[in-house]
């Protein structure tokens, strides 16, 4: 049963992250996702200090705000202070992450968070934190509920805003011309990324969020030219990695999050070498004279 809950958690995180990641990598904003996933740390700590609990809702709000603030700051440094784009990202997220760690050290006695957990989470503990109703009925792990709701919200967001997201990603000029606000959808997307990060954070940590945001979409991008197919494919690849990663971790007796990230990397390696349309080894074969 534990294995089931852990794989389910991983798959839920994989679903939200891979869907959003498709948009991020096509907008060349993969590193913004990385930045947000680190920069939400102070938001989580502050929400924790204010409410004194690891209750999910205030944390989601606190970290969601920080995530949007991060995008604002990056935009601000880049557009108004004319800091080079990559430097703006690097300065912003390291700064916020440093603040987060300092806050953890200052309130070490009151904050039940530790630094390792921030980076690679503890998905193995998911099945231990059960949601038990007042009548004593066990409803399954709490995290699974939070993540299910987040996943539903993300899918809803993408289904309802499909046209707008698609247009602002592929042809912002055209989108603006027919009256779609590019910056509104940009910030909506970033809010979605922040929410996903925070919801997944406790269970899988920043590093797996980044891996899911980047690796499955990048793999799918090598396998297809159709955007809808890419969305579906990246979700499938993410889920596959969760299953594979779990058993790899069991075999090596190591971190599940780390193992899942490793499997996403292997998927990418296979795709770049053997993708039917653009694999490096496949193409070479075709070039040989018949």
């Amino acid at each position, binding site marked *: 049963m534990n294995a089931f809950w852990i794989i389910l958690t991983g798959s839920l995180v994989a679903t939200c992250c891979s869907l959003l990641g498709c948009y991020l990598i096509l907008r060349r904003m993969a590193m913004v996702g990385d930045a947000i996933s680190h920069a939400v740390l102070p938001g989580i700590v502050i929400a924790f200090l204010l409410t004194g609990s690891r209750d999910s809702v205030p944390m989601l709000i606190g970290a969601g705000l920080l995530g949007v603030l991060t995008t604002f700051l990056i935009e601000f440094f880049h557009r108004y202070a*004319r800091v080079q784009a990559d*430097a703006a990202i*690097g300065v912003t997220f390291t700064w916020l992450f*440093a603040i987060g760690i300092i806050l953890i050290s200052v309130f070490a006695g009151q904050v039940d968070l530790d630094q390792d957990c921030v*980076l690679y989470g503890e998905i193995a503990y998911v099945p231990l934190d059960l949601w038990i109703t007042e009548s004593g009925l066990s409803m399954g792990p709490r995290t699974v509920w939070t993540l299910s709701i987040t996943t539903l919200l993300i899918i809803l967001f993408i289904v309802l805003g499909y046209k707008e997201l698609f247009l602002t990603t592929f042809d912002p000029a055209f989108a603006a011309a027919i009256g779609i606000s590019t910056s509104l959808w940009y910030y909506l997307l970033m809010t979605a990324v922040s929410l996903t990060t925070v919801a997944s954070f406790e269970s899988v940590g920043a590093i797996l969020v980044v891996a899911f945001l980047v690796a499955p979409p990048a793999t799918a991008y090598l396998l297809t030219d159709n955007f809808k197919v890419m969305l579906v494919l990246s979700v499938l690849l993410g889920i596959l990695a969760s299953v594979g990663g779990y058993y790899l971790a069991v075999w090596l007796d190591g*971190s599940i999050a*780390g193992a899942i*990230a490793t499997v996403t990397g292997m998927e990418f390696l296979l795709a770049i070498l053997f993708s039917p349309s653009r694999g490096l080894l496949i193409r070479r074969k075709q070039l040989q004279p018949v």
Partner: protein
Amino acid sequence: MQEFLEFFSFADANIRYVTLGSVLLASSSAVVGCFTLLRKRALVGDAVAHAVLPGVCLAFILSGTKNPFILLIGAFVTGWLSLVTIDFITSRSRIKEDTAIGLVLSVFFGIGILLLTSIQHSGNAAQSGLDKFLFGKAASLIGEDLITFSVVAVLLLLVVILFYKELTLLCFDEAYARTIGYPVRALELLLTTLTVFAVVVGIQAVGVVLMAAMLITPAAAARFWTENLKVMLLLAALIGAFSGIAGAYVSYTAPAMPTGPWIVLIVSMIAIFSFALAPGRGWVARLLRQRRNRTQILEENLLKLLYQLGELKQDFYTSRSLSELLERRSIPKGEAISGLQKLKRQGYVKRDHQSWTLTTEGKKRGRRVVRLHRLWELYLTQYLHLAADHVHEDAETIEHIITPELEKRLLEELNYPDLDPHSARIP
């Protein structure tokens, strides 16, 4: 105060180690960071920092010891491999660089975490302390670390000085470097190696995530104060060194405070201060410049209006009401009034009741703007053969910019003309 003196006397060996170590590390990685920043590859340092972890773990698994030298070799190998992988992915597939960086960063780090936890669970007692690579341990630097730091720092600086010209060319004009026969590929590898070196050493002090800041932030801050690369390198090193000392001082006065994050926090504050307030390139300086330009344009437009009205009525020194002015050109009323008041303070217009009159000074300045406008219109029609009805907009902009020298050349070039393309007299 007592603490301050105690700290800066450096009598305590521990203080000496921590401070010197932080300073060496921060300033040498800042210098290397300047070059990666200028090559627009700032985030690559982040990827290397994450990719070091699997190397450390592999070195430990293979050798079974925690000999720092062996661990560093492992770190160096995977750090270097990560950069090569990023280059390979971007050049051989349609994946963009940012995606490649994110991918390599998370996958390498994931492998590292998997290995690290696997080692920790294996019950091998020798493993404790490997995780210091994750978050650094600046506060517990010892003499041995310091020797490694100094050697690497001196080595990095030496290489930068020796290859200064080549690296500069690589950053600013790669194509030219290739043309004159520099081994660009080898130089790229050299810069890569320098980056990996800086990261591998620095990571022990500040940890994986914050290492990127040690490379990027001082360089980004220094870039705002100067246009000269040598000055920029020096400034970045100084900013790095200052934050190193300050971070060490904070964690000395409050022992619970982690040194690494404080160094990063301080260097980030310096950077944000620079982004906002540096003269010339800073945000505030640019806002002020924009405002100054806007006021100048508004004032000159108002004087031009008064002058044109004078021309029309053949009388420059009668007063005109505001509505008369705004009839000819629509300027928001509030803006027009504040502009006129500024002009009054400078002595270009006089005010009686609700109307405004040019002074001699004001007439002179207004006439100059009108002259430049008409000269430019003439120049565009004569030399660029634009239609007479297409030149007004352009002249509206350039009339505020032309310098007296340009004005003289225009007059000469156009042979001191009398009339503009619309047959208005050039004053």
